[in-house]
C-alpha cells in the first residue's frame, strides 16, 4: 500500500510498529506533493523543512514510547488558519506577505498531539466561493477529473486528501465549504455544530456561521480528528463549554432503530439523476441495516440561499473592514489616509470578495438594514425552527450534499447567482447552527464522486459519525482512489 493512501489509523499502526518512521512517511508525502501538484494545485505553501523537523521530533517521541494517534502523521490545513511563523494568505493578495504572530487553537491542538504540518492549502479567497476559482494563487483542480472544480471554499483541503497529498486536512464551513468539496472529491468532511470547535485564529468570514472541521479518508479518521479539535477554548467566547464525547468509542453501535428523516424539499425534481440514484441506494443500504425512515418537511428551505447571502455578506463586509493597510497586509502607495484605505483594499481584494463586501455593505446601509439584514435574520429564525421541530421526531436527516457532481472549471464563474445556488443543500445547516457530514455514496456515470449528507442535532456529532460509520462498513465507495 502507498504511504500517501493510508488513513490516520493505518499510518499510526505502521509508525508504532516501527515499520516506518515519520521522517520516511513525511518524505513520501512531500514527494507525492511534488509529483501531483502541477496537476492539482492543492497547496499555497508547502512547509517541507518544518515538516521534516516535526517528523524528526515525532520519531524521537515514538522511540520513547510517547505516541498519540496523531504523532508523526503528516497533515495539511486550509490557509485560513493562522500558523505562527508560516505565511497565511487566506487565498488573498491582500495577505500575500502576512506571517501570523500566533497559531489557531485547532491547529495548536493537532500540533500538540505531534501532527506534522505539510503546508497550507488553497481555498477560495477569504472562503468566499464554491469552486476554488476565486483564490489569488491559482485554481485547484479535482483529482478525479482535472477539468472539473474540486468544490469550495475548502477545495484544497478536499483535493489534497483525494490526491494523496495529506493524510487528513482541516477546512472551514460557512455555507458548505467543507461538505461540498468533500462530496465532489470523494472524501469525508464534517461541519461540527457552531460552538463545538474554537474559531480562535481562524480568519473570519461570517462569524455567526463559520465553523472548523476535518476532511479525511474515512469516518474513523474524521471522528479522531474531531475528538482532538473539539472543546471549549477561553480564547473563543462562542465556543461552548460542553463535554466532548469519545467519538471513536461509539462508532460501532450501528443504526438499528435509528430514525432518519428525509426532507422532501431536498429531493427536488431538478436533482441530477446520478445524485438521485446514489441517494436511493443509500436509503436502501440504511434500511437493510435496520434504520427507519420518516418523511419530513423543512418548509423554509427555499429561502435559505437568499437568507444566507444577506447575512453572510453583511458579516463579511464588517469583518473585512480590518484590511485597511495599516497594521498588516497589503498597503498601496497613497498621499492621504483615505486614499490608502481605498487603494489598498481595491488592489488587495479579488472580484468575488469585492462583490460580497458590496452586497453586505448595501444590506447594512441606512434605509435597507431592516428590509434586508433584519428580515434575513428573522427568516433565519424560521429556518432554525424547522430543524428543531423536526428533530423532535427524527435522530438524523439524510440528504444530498449538492444537486450535481463537480461542475466544469469556468462553468459558473461569470454567474454568481448560479454559483450561490449550488450550495442550496448545505447552507440551511449553517443557518440552523447544527452539524452535518458528507461521506462518499457513489459515482456519476462520468466517474465523479457523489456525497451523502447526514445532518445531526446540535452537538450530536456522535450520532452522525456512528451513522456514517455504519454506512461506510456496508459500502466500498470510500475505498476508491482517484487515479492521478
Amino acid at each position: 500500500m502507498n504511504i500517501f493512501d493510508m488513513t490516520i489509523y493505518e499510518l499510526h499502526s505502521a509508525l508504532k510498529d516501527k515499520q516506518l518512521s515519520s521522517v520516511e512517511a513525511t518524505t513520501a508525502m512531500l514527494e507525492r506533493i511534488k509529483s501531483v501538484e502541477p496537476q492539482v494545485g492543492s497547496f499555497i505553501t508547502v512547509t517541507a523543512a518544518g515538516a521534516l523537523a516535526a517528523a524528526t521530533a515525532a520519531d524521537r517521541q515514538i522511540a520513547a514510547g510517547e505516541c498519540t494517534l496523531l504523532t508523526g502523521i503528516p497533515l495539511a490545513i486550509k490557509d485560513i488558519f493562522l500558523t505562527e511563523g508560516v505565511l497565511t494568505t487566506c487565498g488573498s493578495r491582500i495577505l500575500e506577505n502576512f506571517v501570523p504572530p500566533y497559531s489557531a487553537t485547532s491547529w495548536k491542538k493537532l500540533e500538540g498531539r505531534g501532527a506534522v504540518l505539510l503546508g497550507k492549502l488553497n481555498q477560495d479567497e477569504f472562503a468566499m466561493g464554491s469552486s476554488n476559482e476565486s483564490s489569488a494563487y491559482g485554481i485547484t483542480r479535482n483529482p478525479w477529473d482535472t477539468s472539473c472544480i474540486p468544490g469550495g471554499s475548502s477545495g484544497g483541503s478536499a483535493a489534497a486528501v483525494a490526491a494523496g497529498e495529506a493524510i487528513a486536512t482541516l477546512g472551514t464551513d460557512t455555507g458548505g465549504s467543507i461538505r461540498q468539496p468533500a462530496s465532489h472529491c470523494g472524501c469525508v468532511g464534517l461541519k461540527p455544530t457552531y460552538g463545538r470547535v474554537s474559531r480562535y485564529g481562524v480568519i473570519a468570514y461570517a462569524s455567526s456561521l463559520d465553523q472548523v472541521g476535518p476532511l479525511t479518508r474515512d469516518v474513523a479518521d474524521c471522528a479522531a480528528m474531531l475528538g482532538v479539535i473539539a472543546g471549549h477554548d477561553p480564547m473563543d467566547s462562542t465556543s461552548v463549554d460542553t463535554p466532548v464525547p469519545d467519538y471513536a468509542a461509539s462508532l460501532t453501535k450501528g443504526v438499528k432503530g435509528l430514525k432518519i428523516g428525509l426532507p422532501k424539499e431536498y429531493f427536488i425534481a431538478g436533482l441530477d439523476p446520478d445524485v438521485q440514484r446514489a441517494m436511493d441506494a443509500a436509503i436502501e443500504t440504511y434500511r437493510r441495516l435496520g434504520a427507519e425512515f420518516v418523511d419530513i418537511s423543512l418548509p423554509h428551505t427555499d429561502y435559505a440561499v437568499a437568507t444566507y447571502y444577506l447575512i453572510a455578506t453583511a458579516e463579511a463586509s464588517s469583518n473585512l473592514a480590518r484590511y485597511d493597510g495599516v497594521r498588516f497586509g497589503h498597503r498601496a502607495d497613497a498621499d492621504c489616509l483615505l486614499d490608502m484605505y481605498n487603494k489598498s483594499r481595491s488592489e488587495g481584494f479579488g472580484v468575488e470578495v469585492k462583490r460580497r463586501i458590496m452586497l453586505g455593505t448595501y444590506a447594512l446601509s441606512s434605509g435597507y438594514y431592516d428590509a434586508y439584514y433584519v428580515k434575513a435574520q428573522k427568516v433565519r429564525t424560521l429556518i432554525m425552527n424547522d430543524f428543531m421541530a423536526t428533530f423532535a421526531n427524527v435522530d438524523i436527516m439524510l440528504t444530498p450534499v449538492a444537486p450535481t457532481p463537480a461542475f466544469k472549471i469556468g462553468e459558473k464563474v461569470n454567474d454568481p447567482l448560479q454559483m450561490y445556488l449550488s450550495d442550496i443543500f448545505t447552507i440551511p445547516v449553517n443557518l440552523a447552527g447544527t452539524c452535518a457530514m458528507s461521506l462518499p455514496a457513489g459515482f456519476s456515470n462520468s466517474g465523479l464522486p457523489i456525497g451523502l449528507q447526514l445532518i445531526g442535532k446540535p452537538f450530536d456529532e456522535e450520532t452522525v459519525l456512528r451513522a456514517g460509520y455504519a454506512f461506510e462498513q456496508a459500502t466500498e465507495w470510500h475505498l476508491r482512489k482517484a487515479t492521478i
Partner: protein
Amino acid sequence: MKMTTADVEYVARLARLELTPGEKELFAGQMDAILGYVEKLKGVDTEGIIPTSHAVPMENSFREDVVRPSIGLEKALANAPERAGSFFAVPKVIE
C-alpha cells in the same frame, strides 16, 4: 429596484473600495440579479418573529480581569507595512 452605477459608487464609497468603470458596470448588473433573487424573502410572514444573530443561545462569557502576557511590541509590529519606532506609520491625516 434597478441598481445603477451611481448606487454602486455610493456603496463602494461606504465600503472603502475604489472600483474600475468595468467593475461598476459588472456589479450593477450582478447585484441587481442577486437583490432581485433575495426579494423572495419579502413573501415570508415574519410578523412577531425574533431575529437570530447567533445560532447557539449563550450569555455573556466573562473571565477574571487579570493581567496576562501579550504578544509584545515586536511581534505586534512585525507585519506593519510601515513603522516609526514603536508605532504603525500611516500617510498624513491632517494637512
